[in-house]
């Protein structure tokens, strides 16, 4: 960090970094500071952080302050009134709805995906490989193109404007990627372990819970977090399958809040911050789990 901020970037260096071998201490040849890389890294940080900073700073301004002060400056008199306004506008209910839909989708999705992944990895029937192919196909299809039949099914089942209407398709849409990641991890469980358990007379059902689940637990947690992110932030299903405030989830509440309080930008941005806060807490607690698992799932 220090080397980047203190040393000026040589004017000619970015165009053509010197090409010669270097003695290394550790890592794949990164002893010489990479100025161009560092510069790009800090630039991208600015791109990421400026909008976040703006949102947080603005959410702490009162409306008069918003119209008169410099938009990029912190407020002279920070206020939490905007947050109060958001909380008073049923934030707790939307939060609870989001939580119900997320847990209600992710837990069943994990359960059925785990069983399917186990069967696909350990089994060998034509039916199972066909099932796996179908799930892989599901990864390639923009499933959101199916919203109209889903809307029809949900209305015909009299589930329109209920939380279950959001949960059922969310489970289905989470399955392909969950099965793919879980089965990738399950293939790494040594076959010998299964064989020795089988010799001890274990059934597949028992092996699944007593061997496969503990061995793939990090992957299960990871897939759970990944799906939870998607469902928690989902917007399209709530938009087409619910309408009343009683069934509103957080992302949709941001949109309706924006419609109702369009003049009060600080309050709208306070709602954005509040809606993101729960995930930020999860990120702080379980960052490694989330990030390492995601990469393992995709680049294995």
């Amino acid at each position, binding site marked *: *960090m220090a080397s*980047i901020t203190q040393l000026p970037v040589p004017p000619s260096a970015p165009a053509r*970094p010197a090409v010669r*071998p270097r003695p290394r201490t*550790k*890592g*794949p040849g*990164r002893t010489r500071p990479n100025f161009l890389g560092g510069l790009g*890294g800090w630039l991208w940080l600015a791109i*990421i952080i400026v909008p976040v900073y*703006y*949102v947080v700073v603005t959410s702490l301004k009162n409306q008069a302050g918003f119209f008169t002060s410099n*938009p*990029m400056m912190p407020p002279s008199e920070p206020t939490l009134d905007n947050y109060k306004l958001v909380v008073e506008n049923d934030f707790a209910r939307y939060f609870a709805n989001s939580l119900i839909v997320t847990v209600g989708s992710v837990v069943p*999705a994990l359960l059925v*995906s785990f*069983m*399917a992944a186990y*069967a696909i990895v*350990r*089994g*060998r*029937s034509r039916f199972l490989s066909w*099932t*796996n192919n179908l799930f*892989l196909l599901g990864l*390639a299809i*923009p*499933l*959101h*193109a*199916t*919203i*109209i*039949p889903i*809307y029809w*099914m949900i209305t015909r089942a009299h589930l329109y404007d209920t939380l279950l209407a959001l949960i*059922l*398709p969310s489970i*289905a849409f989470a*399955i392909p990627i969950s099965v793919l990641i879980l089965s*990738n991890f399950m293939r790494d469980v040594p076959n010998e372990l299964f064989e020795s358990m089988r010799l001890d007379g274990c059934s*597949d059902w028992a092996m*699944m819970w007593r061997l496969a689940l503990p061995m793939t637990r990090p992957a299960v947690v990871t897939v759970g977090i990944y799906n939870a992110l998607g469902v928690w*932030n989902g*917007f*399209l299903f709530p938009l087409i399958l619910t309408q009343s405030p009683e069934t509103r989830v957080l*992302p949709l509440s941001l*949109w309706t809040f*924006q419609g109702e309080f369009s003049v009060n*930008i600080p309050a*709208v941005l306070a709602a*954005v911050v509040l809606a*993101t806060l729960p995930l930020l807490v999860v*990120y702080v607690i379980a*960052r490694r789990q989330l990030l390492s698992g*995601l*990469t393992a799932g*995709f*680049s294995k």
Partner: protein
Amino acid sequence: MSTTSGSSRRALQPGPSGWLAAPALAFFLLFAIIPLIGVLFLSFTSWDGLGEIKLDGLSSWTTVLTDPVTGNALLVTAKIMFFSFIIQAPISLLLGVFTAAGQKYRAALAVLYFVPLLLSSAAVAIAFKALLDPNFGLGAGLGLPILAQEWLGNSDLVLFVVVFVIAWQFVPFHTLIYQGGVRQIPASLYEAAQIDGAGRVQQFFNITLPQLKYTIITSSTLMVVGSLAYFDLVFVLTGGGPGYATRLLPLHMYLTGFKANDMGAASALGVILVAIGLALALLLQRLGGKNRNASQLEGA
């Protein structure tokens, strides 16, 4: 994943029952595959979303295929796909390489890079709507007239604004994928290259890039197919406007179905969406040769 261990396993044991995959399959069939067939069926009907569904031959298709807005939506989608890809792919790859290296400051930057992953599209769109306001946003804050434009009201600029916001939201995810891919490259390859006197740039082009082949295919597939799903972000950010400037295909489908109440035409658009998604996925697989999922599938 060797076929020999697979075949010896086959000889030894029966494998789990296919029933374990049944719940996942049932969910997926009910809420993904049946709607997929349903969208094709509904494209041959006329339906306003509430009343009776009437078989209506090819009239929805005639409407959709003769409507200039459809062609425009396809063009907008193609443009957003193209520009998103050529902006996101190199940035994600470079950031992935950047964050995969061991330095402490890079790890610290990476923690912040991934913050956009936590935000819902609705939150991102609302934040950028405020940030891009010419009077109370970034341009006014920094006192730079060039940044104080009617970003979202100018039909020449708005497409690139949308591409930028999409990149802001999705580059972190692809960075994560590349970071994982880079970390799996054996350090011995770099060591050997250094002994041969290869510099950083040569190592990047001769080792990193070829070794990332499968990661590039995975990330690119997700990027291109994913750009058919940029619905919520654009919906909240611009609503498809000004005029039809950012009305991309999924948004056009939603507005046709749920705002203009022409579910038949919307279903026809949905079919087009699925067809494009499938064609792109197959094309990318073909271009990149067999990907790992396919080869794992065959080995299993």
